[in-house]
């Protein structure tokens, strides 16, 4: 996965350079070659030609942004030729983007491929913007032989009558030979016969267009990488030994972390249901999916909920209901840990370990969402209401509703002031009445007390190292200012792992305690020394004397810092005393739930080598050789 992606990134970087160098010439003299595929945009919109548009840095950025969606490589086709995907639906508004610049970029991108055989998949439909005739003509004229010669196949998907006609005409006049390379395709299912469809990160607009042509995408050989509705232990291994959480969950969490945390009504509101279905099916097909192209946080959030809901065995199966009910009634008192301990040491231990791991990831995300309730309006209560129903699927749906209720939530009516509602006297509610809704709410509120740090070998483990190093360098962990140099880091790391909100970095800041190495190994949930529970507020890292003082002194668990301290400590403790690892790769820790053990160093090195290689060796000449 990361192979082609990085390749793509490298190519883009490269094409930027070339375009920068070449754009001047090309603007003046369209001697440059142009791909004829561009020639069949419908002419109905004779939009203004931004011929004389001022070339600002801004527009450069915009072009770059457009380019990544407009044209990209999707691995190789069945004949191992590089497969270049062009996507007309990503054509930008001509008023925003200089089309000449765009043309230059497209050509220079194609230059990477045209020296040897390649094929092009062109999604013709779904565009809202069409370039003007002038541009089309220019592109058409600048098409030189070298672009045609090695193009072995051109698949045009979802073409309409006009594009077909235009193409036939052009093909007949200019080059009948070229004409023969064109294949018109109506549906994605049909395309799947010609190219490895699942490699293509299909844009949302194309999915929607495809729905007009067929109801369902069928692969010639049904290769189902089923995700939804597959037993969790099949995907993860009973103890999570198969490596990490399901792909779709990971993607959703990562995407939401990067872009969606502030979205109002996250996990509450619905996305476009047709697209939701397409994405879900894409995951089930084993298709490449990048949620970024869909760009809708609600889609990711509901996809995550849907995944949980579709589990054949819900995360809280019916046999756990009595246990849920027996949980001590949660209160608002941060010092009250009885329910926390119960959930931690009794309820969660009842679940298969893979369920625990999944819940751990999900609640970590939800906890972070709830910290931003000022902007997204989804506090722990609201999140619990919308999440709990997805964690149960008993035989009696009405019973499930009862179980998911959250008594004592914010009052619905002004008659009951919200303030007293959630702090209503717990004694009045009898034992055995605790609902899953309440448990979930508490899990979101006090995530760091309830869940342990998790070893997870599937994600890049470098965050701890960096945070660690920074913290140690900048002074003691107990310094009162938790403001960490988060933003500069974030800005300089556009890749996904490193994009995190401030709170996250604050968390990182709090991770590190002055603790000797080797205090504990990877612990399973609930394995901490029970004695420690008696006199400190619940921290999963009960072994560390230093932690206690901290906890005692901050009774309020609402603040991000105080909540976040406990579990990550483990990671560091486990990760031994090698605190001075480099922090060059990433800061912030989207992938927190792991122990930063020896794995950190290893992965870090790998990653570093991987990223730095392109700098030393320009990848350009490598590419055309791929298939020869």
């Amino acid at each position, binding site marked *: 996965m990361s192979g082609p992606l990085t390749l793509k990134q490298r190519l883009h970087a490269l094409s930027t350079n070339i375009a920068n160098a070449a754009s001047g010439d090309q603007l003046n003299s369209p001697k440059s070659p142009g791909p004829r595929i561009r020639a069949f945009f419908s002419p109905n919109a004779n939009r203004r030609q931004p011929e004389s548009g001022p070339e600002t840095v801004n527009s450069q950025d915009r072009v770059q942004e457009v380019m990544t969606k407009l044209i990209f490589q999707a691995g190789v086709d069945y004949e191992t030729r590089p497969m270049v995907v062009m996507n007309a639906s990503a054509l930008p508004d001509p008023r925003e983007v200089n089309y000449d610049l765009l043309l230059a970029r497209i050509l220079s991108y194609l230059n990477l491929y045209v020296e040897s055989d390649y094929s092009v998949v062109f999604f013709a439909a779904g565009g809202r913007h069409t370039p003007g005739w002038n541009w089309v003509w220019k592109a058409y004229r600048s098409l030189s032989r070298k672009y045609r010669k090695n193009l072995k196949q051109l698949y045009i998907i979802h073409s309409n009558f006009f594009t077909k006609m235009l193409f036939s005409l052009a093909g007949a006049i200019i080059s009948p030979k070229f004409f023969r390379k064109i294949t018109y395709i109506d549906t994605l299912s049909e395309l799947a016969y010609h190219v490895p469809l699942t490699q293509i990160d299909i844009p949302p607009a194309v999915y929607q267009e495809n729905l007009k042509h067929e109801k369902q995408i069928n692969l010639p050989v049904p290769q189902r990488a089923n995700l939804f509705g597959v037993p969790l232990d099949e995907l993860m291994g009973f103890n999570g030994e198969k490596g990490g959480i399901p792909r779709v969950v990971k993607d959703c969490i990562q995407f939401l972390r990067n872009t969606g945390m502030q979205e109002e009504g996250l996990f509450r*509101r619905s996305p476009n249901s047709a697209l939701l279905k397409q994405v879900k099916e894409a995951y089930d097909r084993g298709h490449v999916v990048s949620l970024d192209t869909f760009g809708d946080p609600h889609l990711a959030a509901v996809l995550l909920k849907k995944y949980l*809901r579709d589990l054949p065995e819900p995360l809280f199966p019916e046999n756990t209901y009595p246990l849920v009910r027996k949980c001590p009634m949660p209160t608002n008192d941060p010092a009250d840990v009885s329910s926390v301990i119960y959930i931690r040491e009794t309820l969660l231990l009842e679940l298969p370990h893979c369920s625990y791991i999944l819940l751990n990831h999900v609640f970590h995300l939800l906890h972070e969402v709830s910290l931003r309730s000022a902007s997204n309006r989804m506090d722990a209560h609201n999140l619990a209401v919308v999440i709990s129903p*997805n964690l149960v*699927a008993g035989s009696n749906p009405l019973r*499930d509703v009862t179980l998911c209720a959250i*008594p004592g939530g914010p009052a619905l009516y002004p008659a009951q002031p919200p303030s007293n509602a959630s702090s209503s006297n717990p004694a009045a*509610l009898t034992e055995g009445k605790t609902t899953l809704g309440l448990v979930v709410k508490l899990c979101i509120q006090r995530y760091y007390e309830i869940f342990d740090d998790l070893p997870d070998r599937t994600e890049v483990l470098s965050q701890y190292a960096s945070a660690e190093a920074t913290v140690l360098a900048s002074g003691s962990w107990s310094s009162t200012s938790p403001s960490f140099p988060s933003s500069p880091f974030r800005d300089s790391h556009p890749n996904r792992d490193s994009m995190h909100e401030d709170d996250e970095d604050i968390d990182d800041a709090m991770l590190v305690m002055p603790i000797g190495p080797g205090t504990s190994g990877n612990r399973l949930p609930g394995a901490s020394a029970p004695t420690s529970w008696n006199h400190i507020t619940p921290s999963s890292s009960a072994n560390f004397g230093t932690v206690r003082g901290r906890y005692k002194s901050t009774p309020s668990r609402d603040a991000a810092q105080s909540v976040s301290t406990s579990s990550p400590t483990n990671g560091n403790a486990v990760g031994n005393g090698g605190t001075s690892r480099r922090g060059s790769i990433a800061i912030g820790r989207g992938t927190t739930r792991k122990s930063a053990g020896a794995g950190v160093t290893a992965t870090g090195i790998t990653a570093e080598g991987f990223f730095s290689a392109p700098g030393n060796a320009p990848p350009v000449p490598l590419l055309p050789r791929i298939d020869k």
Partner: protein
Amino acid sequence: MADLVYEYSVVVLGAGGVGKSALVVRYAQGQFLSDYNPTIEEQYRCDVQLEGKNCVLDIMDTAGAEQFTALNEVYIKRARGFVLVFSLTQENTLQDIDNIRQQIQMIKGQEANIPIVVVGTKMDLAREREVTRDTIKELASKWGLPFYETSAKNNWHVTDVFHDLLDQMRRRYPDEPLKRRKQKKKTLKGPKHRCIIM
């Protein structure tokens, strides 16, 4: 006042966050629910006088379509009238309505004239509006259902919705004066019951 009480059960369905609760609370309680709290399930009872007869509207406010999908079937089987709610500011919530509408038809089978009202909410947010009146007209004739544009905040057309529905139900089930059934057989709502009786 008599022994004859016409009772009609109504269920309110729609995507999450479109304003189902706000609509119901505005009707049942006469106030605007400005809190931002998703619903699991709430039940409201309203006494209404219609043509000199006492009617009781038993309104079930439900979670967004995204939550208890399994439960929709139960709701649909149980209810006689349906309020399908979408947000005028979110075009894609119409899709959820369409899905639910088809589900209702599937479950209710061949029954004709199922009392349904389609409600677009948040009419006051004119600047964020995504669903045009033309779309609504088109769908109304396509589905053959009455559409209302409402604002729970400004109390626009809220009562019209429920009275239209009540009207439809009265015509659809004319001769079934029901005694007040025991409502307590379902204990759906946990310890706190939030029934409103007007």
